């Protein structure tokens, strides 16, 4: 594979917030490379520091220590004015859209161009094109209050693209949207990434979002990067507790867990093995039943995956053989402590 060029580099980024008595450190020494043209996911539980991290990328939050580079330019060394100029090449969208409520969709999209000094006629022309790109030409003259959540986010995306940024930062961009609308917005982001080659960073607490559009993902836990890798890798065999929690129980509340159940294993079937009745054959072969506790399939960039939480028989010998049987058939098997 060719050497990948970094679009964003974080080097030793720490962020501390001074409180009344002491300071809390929200990000500990983060090193991160995000490559040109990829869709990179950052996932973590609430309070992990995701928003803080993404805000450190465009310096809405100045890192306490460490460096941030955008396409080779060290943002952390720039003065306010140069930084503002660099920000024209980074778009950002938010969970709550943050549109100008007193301006039409068209004026909202023109806004960043107005700020960067693009002549009005040109800004208007480009804003119309962008609204077309996000599928909102008809609602050009609507005010945000007249638009649905999904439409508002589309306006926000068009606005973020107005200054032809190299990077698009999305902080929980779909968290306020229903599943259908979410799917629409995500495919729009993917489309933008493919058509315009814009590097996209997606912050979310939902693994499903990552699976739909990201190529790589970092799991953030308590201000540290717990795991980083391709989405497929992380999904197939998450190495950390948080990773497992996010992959197994995406979006579900902890209370819904059954608790500790013995002999539980998580199995991941690759799409092509789904045709063959592996589980059925295995049970026939060893004459013992396994208990299916949960199961689902996911579409990930690399293909279709099915995951199941299985409870194996108590008999250690049979259990061992069954696991080996599955592993021989390229099924990932991993013990889990809780369900």
């Amino acid at each position, binding site marked *: 594979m060719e050497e990948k060029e970094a679009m964003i580099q974080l080097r030793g980024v720490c962020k501390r917030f001074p409180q009344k008595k002491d300071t809390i450190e929200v990000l500990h020494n983060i090193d991160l490379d995000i490559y040109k043209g990829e869709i990179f996911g950052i996932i973590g539980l609430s309070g992990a520091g995701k928003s803080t991290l993404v805000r450190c990328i*465009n310096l*809405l939050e100045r890192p306490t220590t460490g460096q941030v580079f955008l396409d080779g330019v060290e943002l952390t060394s720039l003065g306010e004015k140069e*930084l*503002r*100029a*660099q*920000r*024209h090449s*980074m*778009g*950002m969208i*938010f969970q*709550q859209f*943050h*549109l*100008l*409520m*007193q*301006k039409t969709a068209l004026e909202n999209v023109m*806004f*960043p161009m*107005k*700020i*960067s000094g693009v002549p009005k006629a040109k800004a208007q022309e480009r804003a119309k094109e962008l609204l077309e790109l996000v599928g909102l030409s008809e609602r050009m003259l609507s*005010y*945000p*209050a*007249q638009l649905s959540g999904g439409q508002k986010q589309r306006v*926000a995306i068009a606005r973020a693209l107005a*200054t032809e940024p190299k990077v698009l*930062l999305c902080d929980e961009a779909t968290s306020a949207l229903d599943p259908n609308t979410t799917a629409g917005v995500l495919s729009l982001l993917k489309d933008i990434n493919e058509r315009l080659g814009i590097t996209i960073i997606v912050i979310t607490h939902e693994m499903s979002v990552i699976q739909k559009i990201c190529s790589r993902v970092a799991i953030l836990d308590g201000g540290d990067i717990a795991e980083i890798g391709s989405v497929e890798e992380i999904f197939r065999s998450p190495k950390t507790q948080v990773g497992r929690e996010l992959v197994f129980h995406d979006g579900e509340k902890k209370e819904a867990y059954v608790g500790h159940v013995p002999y539980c294993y998580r199995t991941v079937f690759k799409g092509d093995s789904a045709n063959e009745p592996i589980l059925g054959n295995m049970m026939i072969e060893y004459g013992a039943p396994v208990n299916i506790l949960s199961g689902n399939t996911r579409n990930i960039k690399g293909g279709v995956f099915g995951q199941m939480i299985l409870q194996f028989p108590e008999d250690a010998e049979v259990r061992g053989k069954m696991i080996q049987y599955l592993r021989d058939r390229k099924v990932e098997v991993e013990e889990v402590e809780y369900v």
Partner: protein
Amino acid sequence: MFEQGMLLLVGEAFLETLFMTLVSTFFAYVIGLPLGMLLVVSDKDGIYPIVSLNKIFGVIINFIRSVPFLILLVAIMPITKIVVGTIIGPKAASLALLVAAGPFVARLVESSLKEVDKGVVEAAQSMGASPFQIMTKVLLPEATPSLLLGFAIAVTTILGYSAMAGICGAGGLGAIAINYGYYRGDKEIMYVMVVLLVLIVQVFQELGTRISRHSDKRM
């Protein structure tokens, strides 16, 4: 009910009150609008924090606002004498109105601007907007409906002040109410004045509310 002369007197007073109120409101905004903007910008969570400056202005404004208007009116008479040349009449009263209303308007403007969603400001910052651009292109336009409501409150409050200024020879409806109603015990006149003042307040308030609602695109 009234003779011709009285009617003329009331008409004149009515215009005087209107003049005092509008002129004072205008100048109160000339001072209060930038001051309110400054308070918002320099706030510790503002777009260009200068905490010490913010504190100083905050204290001055609070100080002036805590002095009851009538006392302020009398207290600044020496200054009025120097600036206006006299301490009676609508012009003299306008200065006191201005001193009292400027800080009041500043606070109104401040609270309107602070109503603007922080997230929108942040979005503008993420696009590389300067503090000046954020003020002129985000905060002021987004706060316009609220600023208009504040304007109605300012006008009606200043109208109330102007009536009080009537005591000190400022003329206007307040003066008539005091001179005829209070000193001469002519209750009828006083009630007419009250009704007139109430009407003016209603008109301004209603107008302000309507224009504000009409300008607001949030529905």
